[in-house]
Structure formats: C-alpha cells, structure tokens
C-alpha cells in the first residue's frame, strides 16, 4: 500500500513528529510512504491512503486547503485527518469534508515507533533538520485553566524507559517535548541518560519552577542546554519562580540563560487575576531577577483566528502596547535583561509607563 503523509503549510518551527511516527508504523506494515508539506502539484507517488495532520485551531486554513487539494487529486484514496485541530474541532472539519475519517487524540499504536526522520530529506523546509524530538512522558500533573494539555493528554505518565534507542543516528540535539518533565516519575533516569548521551538538550516546553530543587538544578547545569525555559503565569507563583531562578543560578546557570514565559490576556469565569498591572508586576520581577521574559498571549482552545480574543480585563490598546514594546524595546519578542530595559522596568510605576515606548528616543525610521 502507498501512504501519503501531508503536513499542511502552517507556520511551525518543528517537523511533524506524529506523521513521522505514523510513517514508521506504516512501513512496519510493508507500506511505502511519502511525506509532503503543503500542496505538491507534480507528485508521482499515487497513494492508496492519505494521512493529514493539523496543528493549532487558528491554523485551520492550510489544513483545509491540503485536504481539498489531495482529495481532488486522488479521489480513490482514503483520507484520514488527525492532530490538534482535527481532535478539538472534528465537527467543524467534518461539516466541510464529509468524506474524510477523523482521528481523535493520540494514535497509541504508532506512538512507540522511532520517527522516520529520513523522510524529512525530501521536504525542503526540513531537509537540514538535525534534532531528535521526544516525549519521555505524556500529560501533566497540573490542571491549569489556560492549558490544553490536561484536556488532550490527561494525567501524567512516563512513556520512555531507556532514552538511548530513541536518539536518531546523526542527530546533534535533543528536544524534549514533555509538558512537565520533572513531574515524571522517571525523570532521574532520563537525566542520567541525557548526561551519558552528551548532546545538547532543550526542555522545549519549559520546566515547572515549583519542582526545581538543588539536585535537579545541579543535573540541569551539567547538561548542555542552550537556554532554560520556565513560566510565570500567575503572580501567586512569585516565590516559586524567584526560588527556582536563585537555585538555578547558584548551580551555575547564567540568569540571562533563563527564559520565562509570561502569560497575558487570559480570562475565564473562575480566573480573573490576569490584568495589565498583574502582568507588569511579573515582567518587572523577571527583569529584577536578571532573566529574560517572553510574553505569551493567551489563545482560547477553539480560536479560529489568532489574536482575536481580548480578555475583559484588558483593552485592545493595552494588548497593542505589549506588541509594540516587544518589537521596539525587546529582542525577538522577548525582554532580555538589557541594562536600559531593566532600568526602564525598574523606574516604571505602572503598566503604561513600563510598556510605553516613549520617552525612549524614536528611531529615525519611525518618524
């Protein structure tokens, strides 16, 4: 059987891990597989089956385009669509394309396969990809209201016993996608494996500041980590974040290597303490700690367009100020602990003072 795997052309920094595992699953059944990104007009591969993945709900458009195109192209082929958007909004998808099968959630049968990274060589965007993407655990111990993980993946469980076999030959980096790495019962073994393997490691989904202690910080410091990601989403976590940063710093991790995601624009009936002032306090604190803050704008689970949701506690004007400040004062969307910026946040007494780009002298190109 011939199986075409389709990654729609939404924006992403990471290749489609699910499709790559699915590719190995199909190969293990004697199937020929082919991976494409987006529309490929002159495909010589004539599939019997087409598997399409999807990502965030607001990135639905390229998914629809891909489904329509490949359906028109290969009418006889069975088509199945999976991934986040397909799982969360299957009814919407089905109303557009009654002829497709929709797969909800994680396809467990394929999960344990080593992803077929070799397929990436045929996709221009991914041909230079050299990192192993890996979940050592799924799910999370927390139940944060703004987070989709507990809804999609459920309770935390370890899924990888021995790391070594999952590291793809020739890869130069390991990217861990665990939602809450240190909450996994198996974290210590995995850390030891990571040390033995010796490749740079990115805890890509961030580590839970509340779980950092001396032992963990020491082990992190012994790894090659380009940066350490954590989050400061609620002012109640001030002590946990401050302590975590201090412990990491004491163990030799440079503060400006610590990257702290900062949620804003979140609101639901039970949680309404995310206000501009609250956000400003968190950013200011991170700045005082000498770390990098990275504002994360909340998107509702089913958003069909990005950046449309506005919390009743925020105004459009305020959200725009954050965008502008990130662009003009920050670097790459983040606020690094540059001296000028630290001073500015330090002097500021309010959200407005902190995020207004004046009185910094306007750049000539903006005049």
């Amino acid at each position, binding site marked *: *059987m011939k199986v075409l795997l389709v990654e729609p052309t939404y924006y992403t920094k990471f290749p489609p891990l699910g499709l790559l595992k699915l590719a190995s699953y199909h*190969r293990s059944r004697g*199937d020929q597989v082919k991976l494409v990104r987006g529309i490929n007009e002159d495909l010589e591969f004539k599939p019997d089956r087409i598997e399409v993945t999807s990502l965030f709900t607001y990135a639905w458009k390229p998914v629809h385009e891909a489904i329509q195109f490949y359906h028109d192209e290969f009418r*006889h082929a069975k088509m199945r669509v999976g991934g986040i958007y397909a799982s969360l909004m299957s009814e919407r998808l089905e109303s557009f394309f009654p002829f497709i099968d929709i797969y909800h959630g994680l396809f467990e049968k394929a999960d344990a396969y080593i992803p077929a990274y*070799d397929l990436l060589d045929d996709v221009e965007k991914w041909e230079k990809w050299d990192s192993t993407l890996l979940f050592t655990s799924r799910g999370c111990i927390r139940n944060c209201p703004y987070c989709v993980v507990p809804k999609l993946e459920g309770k935390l469980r370890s899924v990888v016993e021995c790391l070594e*076999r999952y590291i793809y*030959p020739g890869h130069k980096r390991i990217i861990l996608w665990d939602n809450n790495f240190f909450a996994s019962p198996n974290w210590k073994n995995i850390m030891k494996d990571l040390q033995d393997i010796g490749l740079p490691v990115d805890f890509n989904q961030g580590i839970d500041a509340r779980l950092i202690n001396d032992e963990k910080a020491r082990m992190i410091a012994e790894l090659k980590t380009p940066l350490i990601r954590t989050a400061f989403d609620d002012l109640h976590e001030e002590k946990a974040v401050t302590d975590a940063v201090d412990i990491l710093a004491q163990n030799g991790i440079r503060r400006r290597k610590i990257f702290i995601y900062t949620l804003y624009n979140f609101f639901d009936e039970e949680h309404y303490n995310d206000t501009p002032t609250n956000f400003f306090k968190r950013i200011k604190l991170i700045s005082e700690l000498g770390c990098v803050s990275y504002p994360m704008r909340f998107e509702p689970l089913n958003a069909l367009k990005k950046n449309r949701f506005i919390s009743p506690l925020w105004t459009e004007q305020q959200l725009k100020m954050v965008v502008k400040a990130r662009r003009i004062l920050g670097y790459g969307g983040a606020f690094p602990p540059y001296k000028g910026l630290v001073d500015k946040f330090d002097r500021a007494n309010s959200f407005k003072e902190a995020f207004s780009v004046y009185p910094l002298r306007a750049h000539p190109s903006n005049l």
Partner: protein
Amino acid sequence: MRDVNLLVIFTEEAFGAKLLEALTAGLYDGNKNCLREYVQNSIDSKAKRIDIYYENNRSDLVIKDTGCGMDKQELVKALHLGKSEKPDTAIGWRGIGIWSGIPACRRIVIITKKQNHPKYRIEIDADKLRDQYGHNLLATEVLTEITGEIEELELGRDESKKDSQYTIIRLEEMLSNQRAIFIEKDIKEYLERVVPAPFDTSKFTIGNEINKRLIAHGIKLVKIDIFFENQKIFRPPYNDDFFFSNIIEKTFFVNNVIVAYGWLLSSNKNRILKLSNRGVYFKKKMMTIGDANLVTKQQEGNYNQWQYGEIHIIHDGLKENAPRNNFEANNDIIDPFYKQVGFFVRHLQQMNQYQSHYMVSTPIEQIKKHIDADEIKTAQDKLSKLQKKLQKTRSFPTEPALQGMKKTIDKESNKNRIEIKKLEKAIKKKKKRQPSDLVKEKMERFSDFIKNSRPILKRHLSKTTQKGKLELNIDAMAPVKDLLQQKTGLTENDLSTLTRRAYDWKDVTKGDNGPILQLSESYRDRHFGAMIYGLYNLFVNPFKHEKGKPIFAYYESMTEEEKIETLIEFHHAQNLILRLIEKSDRIRNP
C-alpha cells in the same frame, strides 16, 4: 519392552525459555547469517527476486521476496521451532531460520501474502524475548507471550487478492551494537560470498562456460535476482583479466561415487588475488558452506591464494551443520573427501610455486624501467640474478586436473625467455652511449647553486657532490639538523623529535612542554616545525633498506636531468627552512 514407570517423559514443561537463547543466538555464529537464512527461505518459496534494503536511516533492514507467501496456517507453522515440512529439494530444512534475526533487532515483523489469500502481518518482540531469557519460564509460555496476533492488512491498489504473492521480513530497530555489523559494505560482501547469486557475465565472461559445466555436472543453478539497496548482487569473481582462461576441473569421488565437482581459475600474475576475487569455497545447492579457510585448511602447509574456485557438493550424504560453517562430521564420506581436498590444495600450491619460478614477467617489467631510466648497472644486476634463477629447475605436481595449466604456464615462461634476450641486447646498446649535454648543463647549474648557498648547506653539499652522488640520502637534511641543534642546544639525533621539541608540535597540536624556539608569537610555529619534518619525511628516506619503495619511487623513477632539477628545488626549500630557523629566537632552555 520398556517399563513405562522408568521412562523419563518429556513434555513442554521440560523446555525452559533459556533454550530459546541457545537456539537463536547460540547457533548462529555471527549475526549476519540471518540474511542467509532469509534468502534461503525466499529461494525455497520459489521467489524470482529478493530485495534487501534499509529503511528509517538504516535502523530497519528489510528482506522482501516474490515467493509464494503464506496463508494463516503456514505462517503459524513457519514460526514453529525445529520443525520443517520443506521438501528435500529445499535448501533449508531445520525450521529455525525465521527466528535467526532475533539477536539483531528489537522486533521481527513478517508480512506475507499468498495467492487468493489475505495479506497477513505478525510481529515477534525480540526485546521481550531477551528480557525473559533470564526468568524461569517455559519456552512455550515465552514464545506465546512475545508473538503478536496475526493481523490482516489492507491491500493497496497495485495488489490483487488473487495474484499478489510475497513475503517481507523486517528486522526493526536494529540494536545499536548490531549496526556496525550490518553496515552496507559488509552486507554486500557477505551476500556476494554466501548466497546463490549469478556471475556478472558482462565482465566475467568465463562465467558462461562455467555455468554450462556446472549444469553438465547436475548442479542446478538457482535462478534468482538478489538486490541489495537496489544494486544487483553478483557472486565472485568479477573480472576475466586476473585469470588464465583455463578452467581447472576436479571431480571428487568417495567409494567410486561422485561427491563433489569443483572448478577453479588461476591468477595470471604471480600475486595474491584481490580479496573479492580470491578463495576456494564449498557450495551446496549453490549456497556457500563455511569460508575460504574451510577448503584450504584441509592441507597443513601454506597456500598462497592464487586461485578462485567453487567445490559444489553433489552427494546428499554430505549435510551442512546448522551454522553452515562446516559439514556434519558424523558420516563416512566427510573424512575421505576432506583428505582429497587437502591433497588437491597441496598440488595447487605446488603449481603456484612452479608458476612463481618460471613466470617472470614482473621482474622483466622492472628491468625494462631501469633501462628506460638509464640505470644500466641496476638493470644488469637484476637481469643476471633472474637468469641465474631460471637455470634452476622445479617440478610440476602430478595431479591430472592441473596438467592443462602446465602448458599455459610453460608457454608464458617461453615468452619471458624471449623478452630476456631482448633486454640483454638493450642493455648492451645503452652501455655505449655518453651522458647527454643536458645533464652536464644541469650539473653546472647545480654547482652554481652550491656556491651561492648558505655556508652550513654548502659544507654539506660539497661533501656529497665530491663523491659524485646524485641521490637524496639520509644526510640530506643534516644542515637543518645541525642548525637546529645549535639553536636549541638539544643533542637529539632524530629529526622528528628535534623539530617537535624545538617548535612544540605533536601532530600539529600543542605538545607537552612548550617550544624552545620561537619564530613568531603564534601557534603557526608548530606548523613550521611539522613542515621541517614533513620535508624530511617526504624526500629523505631514513631507512636505507627501503630504497625503491613507493615513497621513494617518484625520485628513483626520474631521469638524470630531472633528478638534478629536483635536488636544486629540494635544497631551495631547505634554504627557506634554514633562514626561518636562523630567524627563530630561543625562548627557553631544553
């Protein structure tokens, strides 16, 4: 009658899981042998084509054939251990083959389709099997535990339930310690050596004739195309050019019954054949049994590997053992057969010695080169030596199968003798000639160069030219050595040590103690040190007995004029080195 009360009855309770380890790992010496087992199964299933290839960046190895495939019952039976219902004509008969990939991977997957039957898939969890060797479980329990359910798979559009047939064996997630064993080059060599691949008769045309003779001796050629990574596999040898065209044929009899038929080709040069083209192998049903040593070790003396050949076992009584590295020892045929093989190999060796003695085209070529390079004295010496050798006699073995080769070798030898006469004449002619004016002119230039050289170099050069030497010799770098010793205060005699210590290089990385001399304040000094040694090593041969070896050949093969020219250039380079050493400052004591 036996008393039932005293009998030891074996039931499945008697077979523990540890037995499985012995079966799957212990029996197969070298894990690549599983490839042979799978190829053999494919041939037995009447496949016309086998494709072996990697998937998932070489983490999976796939063996796919176009054989008859299996239905559900046959698939179950194929997994049974040590039971085979294959007919006598089949190559495999032990019923273990399908399990042979266990030590190499984490999972074996079998996908199979028989005509008019669905496509089935089954998975064997090798990892789990390894886990359970250690536990005290029954073999049957473990086998059931590690073998998945038979899955029915969907057919693609290019398959039909009626006609499609194949079997695919997938060794998935090869263990990391196995990947080094299953590398591309080694698998290719292994297949070429072991499986019943055809000859590449486009380059090895003698193969056509050999095939005819094999058929005439009742040996069935296996008609199968085997591809590895899309390249067709051919069995050796690969080229006519290395061999005399005589096909040596030898039939082995035991008790007046034909046991085996062998054919061999002999090297047309007096040298060991290249690895892929040498060796004499036992074959049974076209599969190789054992390695090249198995044949040659049947005689005790040396054998110099100037032949390629196959000895095909015809007699059914000679059965291969399970690892296929030898024949079963418990029968009356093997000993007399091996004795004959040993005797035959001894005669081959005698024939090679005869050829080595009388066929002298290589020394003739060498002498020709010396004459062309005006090295008349060397040529003369070598020629006399050769003539002396040829005056001695050597006998040819009595083995009847080899007598055809005697004629061929003698014919070559006679050609050689004619060549030798020509060489004698050529040497006489050359002796009369005078050195050309060009050489004189160059020598004058060389003298001029010496006059203008640095004193330390001049001293050395006038010494050597007085002796009339035009050779790069062991002393050629002496001036550099002298200067280095002066500058550093070291007493080393070995230029390598001297430069390494002076400029602190060690494979052009930093050495241990830091430099003694400094040319500039940069690590490049180490490169300079290495360069001095490099020049020395490139041109100056420290071992007199190695003269004429390849590293020196480019100098030796030059004409007289070129030699002088090269010497001048060499000493120019030396001048540069001397200048830079002079410029170096001593920054510490040794």
